[in-house]
Protein backbone atom coordinates (compact mmCIF):
# COMPACT_ATOMS: atom_id res chain seq x y z
CA UNK A 1 0.00 0.00 0.00
CA UNK A 2 1.21 3.47 -0.89
CA UNK A 3 2.59 5.46 2.05
CA UNK A 4 1.37 8.82 3.28
CA UNK A 5 4.52 10.66 2.29
CA UNK A 6 4.30 9.15 -1.21
CA UNK A 7 0.78 10.47 -1.54
CA UNK A 8 1.99 13.94 -0.52
CA UNK A 9 4.77 13.67 -3.05
CA UNK A 10 2.40 12.59 -5.84
CA UNK A 11 -0.02 15.43 -5.05
CA UNK A 12 2.79 17.99 -5.10
CA UNK A 13 4.25 16.75 -8.38
CA UNK A 14 0.87 16.62 -10.12
CA UNK A 15 0.16 20.15 -8.97
CA UNK A 16 3.53 21.38 -10.16
CA UNK A 17 3.53 19.60 -13.53
CA UNK A 18 -0.13 19.81 -14.52
CA UNK A 19 -1.78 22.41 -12.28
CA UNK A 20 -4.32 19.98 -10.81
CA UNK A 21 -4.64 20.30 -7.05
CA UNK A 22 -5.72 17.09 -5.31
CA UNK A 23 -4.59 18.20 -1.86
CA UNK A 24 -8.17 18.74 -0.69
CA UNK A 25 -9.34 15.32 -1.79
CA UNK A 26 -10.40 12.81 0.85
CA UNK A 27 -7.12 11.13 1.68
CA UNK A 28 -8.59 7.68 2.29
CA UNK A 29 -10.35 7.56 -1.04
CA UNK A 30 -7.47 9.15 -3.00
CA UNK A 31 -5.14 6.53 -1.53
CA UNK A 32 -7.47 3.70 -2.47
CA UNK A 33 -7.78 4.93 -6.06
CA UNK A 34 -4.02 5.33 -6.45
CA UNK A 35 -3.38 1.88 -4.95
CA UNK A 36 -5.88 0.39 -7.34
CA UNK A 37 -4.45 2.19 -10.37
CA UNK A 38 -0.90 1.08 -9.54
CA UNK A 39 -2.09 -2.49 -9.13
CA UNK A 40 -4.14 -2.56 -12.34
CA UNK A 41 -1.28 -1.04 -14.34
CA UNK A 42 1.27 -3.37 -12.76
CA UNK A 43 3.43 -0.87 -10.86
CA UNK A 44 5.42 -2.40 -8.00
CA UNK A 45 7.48 0.73 -7.38
CA UNK A 46 6.04 4.11 -6.54
CA UNK A 47 9.03 5.81 -8.21
CA UNK A 48 8.29 4.26 -11.60
CA UNK A 49 4.63 5.21 -11.32
CA UNK A 50 5.45 8.81 -10.44
CA UNK A 51 7.96 9.16 -13.23
CA UNK A 52 5.47 7.87 -15.80
CA UNK A 53 2.95 10.45 -14.61
CA UNK A 54 5.54 13.21 -14.87
CA UNK A 55 6.81 12.28 -18.30
CA UNK A 56 3.63 11.17 -20.06
CA UNK A 57 0.70 13.60 -20.16
CA UNK A 58 -1.48 10.83 -21.62
CA UNK A 59 -0.81 8.70 -18.58
CA UNK A 60 -1.56 11.65 -16.33
CA UNK A 61 -4.94 11.93 -18.06
CA UNK A 62 -5.52 8.27 -17.37
CA UNK A 63 -4.68 8.89 -13.74
CA UNK A 64 -7.24 11.70 -13.49
CA UNK A 65 -9.86 9.46 -15.04
CA UNK A 66 -9.11 6.66 -12.61
CA UNK A 67 -8.78 8.84 -9.51
CA UNK A 68 -12.07 10.61 -10.08
CA UNK A 69 -14.93 8.20 -9.55
CA UNK A 70 -17.25 8.00 -12.52
CA UNK A 71 -19.90 5.64 -11.30
CA UNK A 72 -23.37 7.06 -11.82
CA UNK A 73 -26.82 5.91 -12.84
CA UNK A 74 -30.15 7.22 -14.06
CA UNK A 75 -32.71 8.08 -11.39
CA UNK A 76 -30.36 6.93 -8.60
CA UNK A 77 -32.36 7.22 -5.34
CA UNK A 78 -35.83 7.32 -6.92
CA UNK A 79 -37.29 9.02 -3.84
CA UNK A 80 -35.05 12.00 -4.52
CA UNK A 81 -36.38 12.32 -8.07
CA UNK A 82 -39.91 12.01 -6.80
CA UNK A 83 -39.30 15.01 -4.56
CA UNK A 84 -37.84 16.96 -7.47
CA UNK A 85 -40.89 16.07 -9.53
CA UNK A 86 -43.50 16.94 -6.93
CA UNK A 87 -41.93 19.76 -4.93
CA UNK A 88 -39.12 21.49 -6.79
CA UNK A 89 -40.15 21.49 -10.45
CA UNK A 90 -43.59 23.05 -9.84
CA UNK A 91 -41.77 25.95 -8.18
CA UNK A 92 -39.32 26.26 -11.05
CA UNK A 93 -42.26 26.24 -13.44
CA UNK A 94 -43.30 29.70 -12.30
CA UNK A 95 -40.09 31.14 -13.77
CA UNK A 96 -39.79 32.39 -17.33
CA UNK A 97 -36.52 30.53 -17.75
CA UNK A 98 -34.95 27.67 -15.79
CA UNK A 99 -31.21 27.24 -15.36
CA UNK A 100 -29.83 24.07 -13.78
CA UNK A 101 -26.24 23.10 -13.01
CA UNK A 102 -25.11 19.50 -12.62
CA UNK A 103 -21.71 19.88 -10.94
CA UNK A 104 -19.58 16.75 -11.33
CA UNK A 105 -21.96 15.23 -13.88
CA UNK A 106 -19.65 12.35 -14.87
CA UNK A 107 -21.08 10.47 -17.89
CA UNK A 108 -24.35 12.40 -17.68
CA UNK A 109 -26.93 9.85 -16.52
CA UNK A 110 -28.35 12.30 -13.97
CA UNK A 111 -28.54 15.09 -16.52
CA UNK A 112 -30.66 12.98 -18.85
CA UNK A 113 -32.81 11.90 -15.90
CA UNK A 114 -33.42 15.57 -15.14
CA UNK A 115 -34.21 16.36 -18.76
CA UNK A 116 -36.85 13.62 -18.77
CA UNK A 117 -38.40 15.06 -15.59
CA UNK A 118 -38.41 18.53 -17.12
CA UNK A 119 -40.09 17.29 -20.27
CA UNK A 120 -42.75 15.46 -18.30
CA UNK A 121 -43.36 18.63 -16.27
CA UNK A 122 -43.59 20.60 -19.53
CA UNK A 123 -40.58 22.73 -18.59
CA UNK A 124 -37.91 21.41 -20.94
CA UNK A 125 -38.59 24.02 -23.64
CA UNK A 126 -37.63 26.83 -21.27
CA UNK A 127 -34.80 25.05 -19.46
CA UNK A 128 -31.06 24.94 -19.91
CA UNK A 129 -28.97 22.26 -18.21
CA UNK A 130 -25.31 23.05 -17.60
CA UNK A 131 -23.30 19.93 -16.91
CA UNK A 132 -19.68 20.10 -15.81
CA UNK A 133 -16.96 17.72 -14.76
CA UNK A 134 -13.21 17.88 -14.13
CA UNK A 135 -12.72 15.01 -16.59
CA UNK A 136 -13.11 15.84 -20.33
CA UNK A 137 -13.40 12.17 -21.26
CA UNK A 138 -16.66 11.59 -19.39
CA UNK A 139 -18.14 14.79 -20.83
CA UNK A 140 -17.69 13.31 -24.29
CA UNK A 141 -19.86 10.34 -23.31
CA UNK A 142 -22.39 12.62 -21.65
CA UNK A 143 -22.67 14.78 -24.73
CA UNK A 144 -23.55 11.78 -26.88
CA UNK A 145 -26.22 10.50 -24.49
CA UNK A 146 -25.34 6.91 -25.28
CA UNK A 147 -25.46 4.44 -22.42
CA UNK A 148 -25.19 0.64 -22.21
CA UNK A 149 -28.49 -0.99 -23.10
CA UNK A 150 -28.09 -3.60 -20.35
CA UNK A 151 -28.55 -0.85 -17.74
CA UNK A 152 -31.95 0.20 -19.08
CA UNK A 153 -33.92 -2.38 -17.11
CA UNK A 154 -32.61 -1.01 -13.80
CA UNK A 155 -33.02 2.58 -14.95
CA UNK A 156 -36.56 1.91 -16.07
CA UNK A 157 -37.38 0.46 -12.63
CA UNK A 158 -35.81 3.51 -10.96
CA UNK A 159 -37.80 5.75 -13.27
CA UNK A 160 -41.09 4.08 -12.34
CA UNK A 161 -40.19 4.23 -8.63
CA UNK A 162 -39.54 7.96 -9.04
CA UNK A 163 -43.14 8.43 -10.14
CA UNK A 164 -42.68 8.19 -13.91
CA UNK A 165 -45.72 7.02 -15.88
CA UNK A 166 -44.45 7.06 -19.46
CA UNK A 167 -42.92 4.22 -21.42
CA UNK A 168 -39.25 4.68 -20.48
CA UNK A 169 -38.03 2.92 -23.63
CA UNK A 170 -39.71 5.66 -25.67
CA UNK A 171 -36.95 8.06 -24.60
CA UNK A 172 -34.14 6.25 -26.40
CA UNK A 173 -33.39 4.20 -29.48
CA UNK A 174 -31.69 0.87 -28.94
CA UNK A 175 -28.92 -0.20 -31.25
CA UNK A 176 -25.95 -2.58 -31.03
CA UNK A 177 -26.20 -2.91 -27.26
CA UNK A 178 -26.48 0.81 -26.64
CA UNK A 179 -29.33 3.14 -25.83
CA UNK A 180 -29.13 6.56 -27.44
CA UNK A 181 -31.27 9.17 -25.76
CA UNK A 182 -33.26 11.54 -27.93
CA UNK A 183 -31.48 14.66 -29.13
CA UNK A 184 -34.34 16.80 -27.93
CA UNK A 185 -32.73 16.28 -24.50
CA UNK A 186 -29.08 16.93 -25.39
CA UNK A 187 -30.17 20.04 -27.33
CA UNK A 188 -30.99 21.59 -23.96
CA UNK A 189 -27.64 20.72 -22.40
CA UNK A 190 -24.34 22.56 -22.28
CA UNK A 191 -21.30 20.46 -21.36
CA UNK A 192 -18.07 21.98 -20.19
CA UNK A 193 -14.99 21.18 -18.18
CA UNK A 194 -15.05 22.76 -14.74
CA UNK A 195 -12.88 22.06 -11.71
CA UNK A 196 -14.59 22.63 -8.37
CA UNK A 197 -11.18 23.12 -6.75
CA UNK A 198 -9.84 25.91 -8.92
CA UNK A 199 -12.59 27.29 -11.19
CA UNK A 200 -15.06 29.97 -10.22
CA UNK A 201 -18.75 30.60 -10.51
CA UNK A 202 -19.78 31.05 -14.16
CA UNK A 203 -23.51 31.76 -14.04
CA UNK A 204 -26.51 32.04 -11.76
CA UNK A 205 -28.74 28.99 -11.37
CA UNK A 206 -32.16 28.11 -9.99
CA UNK A 207 -31.12 24.59 -9.09
CA UNK A 208 -27.69 23.09 -8.51
CA UNK A 209 -27.22 19.33 -8.21
CA UNK A 210 -23.98 17.91 -6.91
CA UNK A 211 -24.68 14.41 -5.70
CA UNK A 212 -21.98 12.11 -4.37
CA UNK A 213 -19.17 14.36 -5.51
CA UNK A 214 -18.35 16.17 -2.26
CA UNK A 215 -17.79 12.81 -0.53
CA UNK A 216 -14.42 12.70 -2.34
CA UNK A 217 -13.33 16.01 -0.78
CA UNK A 218 -12.09 16.77 2.70
CA UNK A 219 -14.10 19.10 4.94
CA UNK A 220 -12.20 22.21 3.89
CA UNK A 221 -12.61 21.61 0.17
CA UNK A 222 -16.27 20.73 0.73
CA UNK A 223 -16.72 24.16 2.32
CA UNK A 224 -14.99 25.77 -0.61
CA UNK A 225 -17.27 24.00 -3.12
CA UNK A 226 -20.39 24.84 -1.10
CA UNK A 227 -19.35 28.50 -1.13
CA UNK A 228 -18.97 28.27 -4.90
CA UNK A 229 -22.50 26.84 -5.15
CA UNK A 230 -23.81 29.61 -2.92
CA UNK A 231 -22.18 32.17 -5.21
CA UNK A 232 -23.87 30.50 -8.18
CA UNK A 233 -27.38 30.13 -6.79
CA UNK A 234 -30.15 32.69 -7.13
CA UNK A 235 -32.13 33.71 -4.07
CA UNK A 236 -34.79 31.02 -3.41
CA UNK A 237 -32.83 28.63 -5.61
CA UNK A 238 -32.22 25.04 -4.50
CA UNK A 239 -29.11 23.00 -3.82
CA UNK A 240 -29.34 19.18 -3.98
CA UNK A 241 -26.70 16.86 -2.56
CA UNK A 242 -26.33 13.07 -2.21
CA UNK A 243 -28.39 11.16 0.35
CA UNK A 244 -25.50 10.97 2.82
CA UNK A 245 -24.14 14.48 2.31
CA UNK A 246 -24.97 17.65 4.19
CA UNK A 247 -24.33 21.38 4.45
CA UNK A 248 -24.43 21.02 8.23
CA UNK A 249 -21.41 22.66 9.90
CA UNK A 250 -20.55 24.51 6.67
CA UNK A 251 -20.26 28.27 6.29
CA UNK A 252 -23.36 28.59 4.11
CA UNK A 253 -25.75 26.69 6.39
CA UNK A 254 -27.33 29.76 8.00
CA UNK A 255 -28.56 31.04 4.63
CA UNK A 256 -30.37 27.82 3.78
CA UNK A 257 -33.50 25.98 4.75
CA UNK A 258 -33.69 22.22 4.40
CA UNK A 259 -36.70 20.67 2.70
CA UNK A 260 -38.00 18.27 5.36
CA UNK A 261 -35.54 15.42 5.60
CA UNK A 262 -34.52 15.58 1.95
CA UNK A 263 -31.00 16.49 0.92
CA UNK A 264 -32.34 19.61 -0.75
CA UNK A 265 -31.78 23.09 0.62
CA UNK A 266 -33.40 26.36 -0.36
CA UNK A 267 -31.41 29.56 -0.32
CA UNK A 268 -33.48 31.94 1.80
CA UNK A 269 -30.96 34.74 2.44
Amino acid at each position, binding site marked *: MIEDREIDWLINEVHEYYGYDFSGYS*RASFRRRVDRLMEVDGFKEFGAFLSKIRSEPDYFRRMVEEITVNVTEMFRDPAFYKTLRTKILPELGTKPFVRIWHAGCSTGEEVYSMAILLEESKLLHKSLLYATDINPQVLETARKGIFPLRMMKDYSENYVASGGHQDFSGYYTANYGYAKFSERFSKKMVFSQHNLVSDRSFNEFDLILCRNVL*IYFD*KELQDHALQLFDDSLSLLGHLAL*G*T*KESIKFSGIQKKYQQLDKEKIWKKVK
Partner: protein
Amino acid sequence: MEKGQVKKLVLIGGSAGSIEVLMAVLPRLPIGMDFPIVVVLHRKSSDDNTLEELFAMKTHVPVREIEDKTRIENGSLYVVPADYHLLFESNGTVSLDVSEKVHYSRPSIDVVFESAAATYKEGVVAILLSGSNADGALGCVRVQENGGTVVVQNPAEAEMPFMPNSAIQLLKPDFIASTDDIASLIGRI
Protein backbone atom coordinates in the same frame (compact mmCIF):
# COMPACT_ATOMS: atom_id res chain seq x y z
CA MET B 1 -6.72 6.09 27.28
CA GLU B 2 -7.36 9.65 26.23
CA LYS B 3 -11.08 10.20 26.25
CA GLY B 4 -12.56 10.49 22.79
CA GLN B 5 -9.67 9.08 20.83
CA VAL B 6 -10.44 5.77 19.14
CA LYS B 7 -7.75 3.16 19.85
CA LYS B 8 -9.77 0.03 19.34
CA LEU B 9 -12.25 -0.38 16.51
CA VAL B 10 -14.51 -3.40 16.17
CA LEU B 11 -15.75 -4.25 12.68
CA ILE B 12 -18.46 -6.80 12.00
CA GLY B 13 -18.92 -7.92 8.40
CA GLY B 14 -21.42 -10.37 7.01
CA SER B 15 -23.89 -11.24 4.33
CA ALA B 16 -26.65 -13.84 4.04
CA GLY B 17 -27.35 -15.40 7.42
CA SER B 18 -25.49 -12.79 9.45
CA ILE B 19 -28.42 -10.76 10.77
CA GLU B 20 -29.52 -13.66 12.99
CA VAL B 21 -26.03 -13.77 14.48
CA LEU B 22 -26.09 -10.03 15.16
CA MET B 23 -29.50 -10.34 16.78
CA ALA B 24 -27.94 -12.75 19.27
CA VAL B 25 -24.73 -10.77 19.77
CA LEU B 26 -26.09 -7.22 20.10
CA PRO B 27 -28.02 -7.71 23.37
CA ARG B 28 -24.82 -9.01 24.95
CA LEU B 29 -22.46 -6.20 24.08
CA PRO B 30 -20.41 -5.16 27.13
CA ILE B 31 -21.80 -2.44 29.40
CA GLY B 32 -19.65 0.70 29.30
CA MET B 33 -18.19 -0.24 25.93
CA ASP B 34 -15.33 2.19 25.33
CA PHE B 35 -14.79 1.57 21.62
CA PRO B 36 -16.91 1.93 18.48
CA ILE B 37 -18.44 -0.92 16.47
CA VAL B 38 -18.96 -0.56 12.73
CA VAL B 39 -21.27 -3.09 11.08
CA VAL B 40 -20.98 -3.67 7.34
CA LEU B 41 -23.54 -5.96 5.74
CA HIS B 42 -24.48 -6.70 2.17
CA ARG B 43 -27.94 -5.22 1.95
CA LYS B 44 -30.39 -4.19 -0.69
CA SER B 45 -30.05 -0.58 -1.68
CA SER B 46 -32.91 1.33 -0.18
CA ASP B 47 -33.44 4.60 1.57
CA ASP B 48 -34.97 3.22 4.71
CA ASN B 49 -33.28 2.69 8.05
CA THR B 50 -35.00 -0.57 8.98
CA LEU B 51 -31.75 -2.36 9.74
CA GLU B 52 -30.59 0.43 12.05
CA GLU B 53 -33.97 0.43 13.80
CA LEU B 54 -33.87 -3.33 14.17
CA PHE B 55 -30.41 -3.17 15.74
CA ALA B 56 -31.37 -0.29 18.02
CA MET B 57 -34.11 -2.41 19.54
CA LYS B 58 -31.63 -5.12 20.41
CA THR B 59 -28.91 -3.24 22.22
CA HIS B 60 -28.29 -0.65 24.92
CA VAL B 61 -25.47 0.79 22.79
CA PRO B 62 -26.58 3.88 20.81
CA VAL B 63 -26.95 3.09 17.08
CA ARG B 64 -25.86 6.11 15.05
CA GLU B 65 -26.31 6.93 11.41
CA ILE B 66 -23.28 7.30 9.16
CA GLU B 67 -23.12 10.22 6.78
CA ASP B 68 -20.11 11.47 4.88
CA LYS B 69 -17.40 12.74 7.31
CA THR B 70 -19.22 11.41 10.37
CA ARG B 71 -16.84 11.16 13.33
CA ILE B 72 -16.65 7.60 14.64
CA GLU B 73 -16.88 7.80 18.43
CA ASN B 74 -16.27 5.40 21.29
CA GLY B 75 -19.31 3.74 22.77
CA SER B 76 -21.50 3.82 19.67
CA LEU B 77 -22.52 1.35 16.99
CA TYR B 78 -22.60 2.38 13.34
CA VAL B 79 -24.08 0.67 10.30
CA VAL B 80 -22.53 1.33 6.89
CA PRO B 81 -25.26 2.78 4.64
CA ALA B 82 -26.56 0.83 1.65
CA ASP B 83 -24.95 1.51 -1.72
CA TYR B 84 -21.81 3.24 -0.38
CA HIS B 85 -18.32 2.01 0.39
CA LEU B 86 -16.87 3.31 3.64
CA LEU B 87 -13.30 4.53 4.19
CA PHE B 88 -11.59 5.63 7.39
CA GLU B 89 -9.71 8.94 7.46
CA SER B 90 -6.76 9.48 9.80
CA ASN B 91 -8.58 12.32 11.62
CA GLY B 92 -11.23 9.99 13.04
CA THR B 93 -13.92 10.69 10.45
CA VAL B 94 -15.16 8.48 7.62
CA SER B 95 -15.63 9.17 3.93
CA LEU B 96 -18.26 7.53 1.77
CA ASP B 97 -17.54 6.38 -1.76
CA VAL B 98 -19.75 5.19 -4.63
CA SER B 99 -17.03 3.66 -6.80
CA GLU B 100 -17.36 0.24 -8.46
CA LYS B 101 -18.77 -2.65 -6.50
CA VAL B 102 -16.27 -5.11 -5.04
CA HIS B 103 -17.38 -8.75 -5.00
CA TYR B 104 -20.64 -7.50 -6.51
CA SER B 105 -21.15 -5.56 -3.31
CA ARG B 106 -21.35 -1.96 -2.17
CA PRO B 107 -20.65 -1.64 0.66
CA SER B 108 -17.87 -4.18 0.38
CA ILE B 109 -16.50 -5.78 3.54
CA ASP B 110 -13.00 -5.96 1.99
CA VAL B 111 -13.00 -2.20 1.42
CA VAL B 112 -14.05 -1.42 4.99
CA PHE B 113 -11.62 -3.90 6.58
CA GLU B 114 -8.66 -2.79 4.42
CA SER B 115 -9.25 0.88 5.07
CA ALA B 116 -9.66 0.33 8.80
CA ALA B 117 -6.45 -1.73 8.87
CA ALA B 118 -4.52 1.06 7.16
CA THR B 119 -5.84 3.67 9.60
CA TYR B 120 -6.28 1.90 12.96
CA LYS B 121 -3.57 -0.80 12.53
CA GLU B 122 -3.35 -3.10 15.56
CA GLY B 123 -6.44 -1.52 17.08
CA VAL B 124 -8.72 -3.30 14.62
CA VAL B 125 -10.80 -6.29 15.64
CA ALA B 126 -12.46 -7.66 12.48
CA ILE B 127 -15.26 -10.18 12.82
CA LEU B 128 -16.47 -12.02 9.72
CA LEU B 129 -19.83 -13.79 9.85
CA SER B 130 -21.97 -15.96 7.63
CA GLY B 131 -22.29 -15.16 3.94
CA SER B 132 -22.35 -16.68 0.50
CA ASN B 133 -19.52 -14.81 -1.19
CA ALA B 134 -15.81 -14.28 -0.65
CA ASP B 135 -15.98 -10.61 0.32
CA GLY B 136 -14.13 -9.92 3.56
CA ALA B 137 -11.46 -12.62 3.28
CA LEU B 138 -8.81 -10.38 1.74
CA GLY B 139 -9.79 -7.64 4.17
CA CYS B 140 -9.06 -10.03 7.05
CA VAL B 141 -5.58 -10.64 5.61
CA ARG B 142 -4.91 -6.88 5.60
CA VAL B 143 -6.15 -6.58 9.19
CA GLN B 144 -3.69 -9.25 10.34
CA GLU B 145 -0.83 -7.80 8.28
CA ASN B 146 -1.32 -4.54 10.15
CA GLY B 147 -1.32 -6.20 13.56
CA GLY B 148 -5.08 -6.38 14.09
CA THR B 149 -7.15 -9.32 15.26
CA VAL B 150 -9.39 -11.49 13.09
CA VAL B 151 -12.39 -13.42 14.39
CA VAL B 152 -14.27 -15.69 11.99
CA GLN B 153 -17.60 -17.29 12.73
CA ASN B 154 -17.33 -21.06 12.98
CA PRO B 155 -18.34 -22.21 9.47
CA ALA B 156 -19.98 -25.32 10.93
CA GLU B 157 -22.37 -23.00 12.70
CA ALA B 158 -22.82 -20.39 9.98
CA GLU B 159 -26.01 -20.50 7.95
CA MET B 160 -23.87 -19.74 4.86
CA PRO B 161 -20.36 -21.09 5.52
CA PHE B 162 -18.82 -19.84 2.25
CA MET B 163 -17.74 -16.45 3.59
CA PRO B 164 -16.03 -17.67 6.79
CA ASN B 165 -14.51 -20.59 4.86
CA SER B 166 -13.06 -18.22 2.26
CA ALA B 167 -11.28 -16.36 5.04
CA ILE B 168 -10.01 -19.55 6.68
CA GLN B 169 -8.53 -20.64 3.34
CA LEU B 170 -6.57 -17.38 3.06
CA LEU B 171 -5.35 -16.91 6.61
CA LYS B 172 -5.27 -18.36 10.09
CA PRO B 173 -7.87 -16.40 12.09
CA ASP B 174 -6.95 -15.48 15.64
CA PHE B 175 -10.27 -16.94 16.74
CA ILE B 176 -12.85 -19.20 15.15
CA ALA B 177 -15.86 -18.47 17.28
CA SER B 178 -19.39 -19.62 17.88
CA THR B 179 -22.17 -17.05 18.11
CA ASP B 180 -22.03 -17.40 21.89
CA ASP B 181 -18.30 -16.64 21.98
CA ILE B 182 -18.45 -13.61 19.69
CA ALA B 183 -20.13 -11.27 22.19
CA SER B 184 -17.62 -11.99 24.93
CA LEU B 185 -14.65 -11.80 22.53
CA ILE B 186 -15.75 -8.30 21.46
CA GLY B 187 -15.21 -7.03 25.00
CA ARG B 188 -12.10 -9.07 25.74
CA ILE B 189 -9.78 -8.59 22.78
